């Protein structure tokens, strides 16, 4: 268990958020509605930095191990919070359905997530409503599609044997 006992016991407001222990790290599964509020509570509790935010596409692996009560969805936004005073990490995993890939922005709780959310939108196609600058960050502006999705091909150019199909 994380040092200092499970966080859910320490912070009453987190009581009803489902939690799991993945390889020694503490993971919470807030729903999209509770997401920003849980992040604010955690920030008050000392998690001053959001060290990482990324989106995961579970298209080929929908049936993964989840604590019961969490409905598996195709997309997941994974936020990694870090507290400096007692050195601890906690992870939030938010389910984002495929038909409505929208997630509330974390910018007004952790300003450090501005570029991370733009990258998640750019590569995975999850829109963050309320984000000040919802544009692409890594791909060219006129690029169609979101490359990191599982149904987006690798874009491999076939190896150029004599007579092999290919642009060259």
């Amino acid at each position: 268990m994380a040092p200092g006992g499970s966080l859910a016991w320490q912070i009453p407001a987190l009581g009803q958020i489902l939690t799991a222990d993945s390889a020694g790290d503490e993971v919470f599964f807030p729903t999209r509605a509770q997401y920003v509020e849980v992040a604010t509570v955690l920030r008050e509790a000392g998690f001053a930095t959001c060290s990482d935010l990324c989106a995961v596409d579970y298209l080929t692996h929908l049936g993964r191990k989840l604590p019961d009560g969490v409905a598996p969805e195709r997309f997941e936004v994974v936020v990694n919070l870090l507290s400096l005073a007692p050195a601890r990490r906690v992870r939030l995993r938010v389910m984002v359905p495929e038909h409505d890939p929208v997630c509330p922005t974390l910018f007004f709780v952790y300003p450090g997530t501005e570029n991370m959310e733009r990258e998640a939108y750019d590569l995975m196609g999850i829109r963050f409503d309320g984000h000040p600058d919802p544009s692409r960050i890594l791909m060219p502006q006129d690029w169609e599609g979101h490359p990191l999705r599982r149904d987006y091909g690798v874009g491999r150019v076939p190896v150029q044997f004599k007579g092999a199909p290919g642009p060259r």
Partner: protein
Amino acid sequence: MGSLDSYLPIFLLLALGVLFAALSIAASRLLAPYRPNAAKQAPYECGIVPTADPPQRFPVRFYLVAMIFIIFDIEIIFLFPWAVIYGQLGRFGLVEVIVFAGAVFVSFIYLVANGALDWGPERRARSFRGASERTTESTVRRVGSAGGRAA
């Protein structure tokens, strides 16, 4: 012709300069391929194709800085001939150049008073030069393993 031969080295230098310039221009005109295209004539924007053309109006302060430079540059140029014959002028020359420098210095005071020169980030109140004696040792502190977890 007597007085002219003292000018011979200057003419020689001038001729050599012109010759060298003409030679290099002619060589590049003749030997280098000249194939202008629109990309080459477009302003270099670190690789980005310029869509908006550069603004025509520049802040007026650039002009002001140029004017100030010209004033003090000409002042220095006037000092050159004075310095050559400074020996014969004696006390009169000294007083005369002090009056000349004083007149230009008054304009300098007026300029600084009007704030023509302070154009830039005002927040960096520059302490007197060399005041801070920070070295790479003095400006950092070391938190050893016994020094506790975080600051």
